[in-house]
């Protein structure tokens, strides 16, 4: 699963620094993500995992450092350009799903497409197709508060994949679920990204989740630990 070194990474971060107040969250983190691979970002609490993910996903801007996506400098794009790129190329799955509670499952999934100015009918059709693929078609007209944690997470995965992103970022996607439900949600996330060819960057503190990815990037104190792991 490890990508060949001659291949150009789809996403590349170099020497990222990010400080919140006087708290340094990232201290020179660098990372490459190759097309179609699944990478687990691990590390103890406070190691900067989530901050790194948010920087890579363009949700948070690093103080210094460079992020290149598909040959373009993400950190140098104008905010509206970055938003557009993020909406069309990136998918995001968070720990608690972060669905809009007032909208039904189908409306939640259709939302990113509507923001891209797709017609209501085609957005609804795409949402229903994804609900079916993730075996939660029966939830189409249900609202998040009526769903179980595992169901809500499947809807969140569908929402992240409905735009056919080339890369999906997941921040502790199973963190709020029990082991077996979490395992099922993880299998859904992995098989859906594999089927669409999207790369997956997965932040987790759970070794079993990390073991489901093809490769691990371990963070400590805001930087990637050197990979001098002789085997």
């Amino acid at each position, binding site marked *: 699963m490890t990508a060949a070194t001659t291949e150009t990474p789809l996403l590349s971060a170099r020497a990222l620094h990010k400080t919140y107040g006087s708290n340094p969250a990232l201290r020179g983190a660098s990372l490459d993500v190759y097309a179609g691979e699944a990478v687990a970002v691990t590390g*103890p609490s406070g190691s900067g995992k989530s901050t790194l993910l948010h920087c890579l996903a363009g949700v948070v801007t690093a103080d210094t450092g460079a992020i290149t996506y598909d040959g373009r400098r993400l950190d140098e794009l104008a905010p509206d350009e970055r938003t557009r790129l993020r909406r069309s190329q990136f998918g995001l799955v968070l720990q608690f799903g972060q669905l809009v509670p007032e909208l039904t499952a189908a409306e939640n999934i259709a939302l990113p497409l509507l923001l891209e100015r797709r017609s209501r009918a085609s957005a609804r059709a795409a949402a229903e197709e994804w609900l079916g693929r993730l075996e939660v078609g029966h939830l189409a007209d249900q609202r998040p508060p009526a769903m179980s944690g595992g169901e809500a997470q499947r809807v969140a995965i569908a929402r992240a994949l409905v735009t056919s992103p080339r890369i999906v970022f997941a921040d502790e996607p199973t963190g709020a679920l029990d082991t077996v439900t979490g395992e099922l949600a993880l*299998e859904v996330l992995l098989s859906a990204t594999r089927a669409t060819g999207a790369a997956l960057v997965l932040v987790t503190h759970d*070794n*079993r989740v*990390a*073991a*489901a*990815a*093809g490769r*691990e990037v*371990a963070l400590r104190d805001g930087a990637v*630990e050197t990979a001098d*792991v*002789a*085997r």
Partner: protein
Amino acid sequence: MSLGTVLLGVLADGPAHGYDLKKAHDERFPASKQLAYGQVYATLTRLQRDGLVETFETTQSGGPERTAYAITEVGRVELDRWLGETEDPGPYAADELVRKTITALHVKSDADGFLRRQRAVHLEAMRELTASRAEAEEIGTRVAIDHTLAHLDADLRWLEETRDRVLRTEGSR
């Protein structure tokens, strides 16, 4: 009594030859060492002597004689007794991994480097098991792999905690 009762567990599904018992055992417990035929037949002889299994039928078609065995009523009682009994939590303290780490801390060798490399080895083992579990359809195979995964995960968490302690101790010097 473990192998005997495990074979009784296979025979509870119906009579089987020694060969079938070995195959069923190896499929049920992919993480453990494969059974040798000698072990299977020695165990069957003992089970028969104790009245826990009996000869079901002996056939011969060209090759050597083949005997199928069946579980007896006494065998079924013994199997149920074993299944109902709890097990002693295993003795984990003598693990080579623990001994090596403690020794490394005592002789002040590069414990951090060792712990980091060991983590990579453990995670790779988990990765391989996770991949084979994804392909396993039978619940028995999945839970057998889950058990190994849970132990590797416990080791990994211990490795991480130990590394945290080592780094903190070094940091406070």
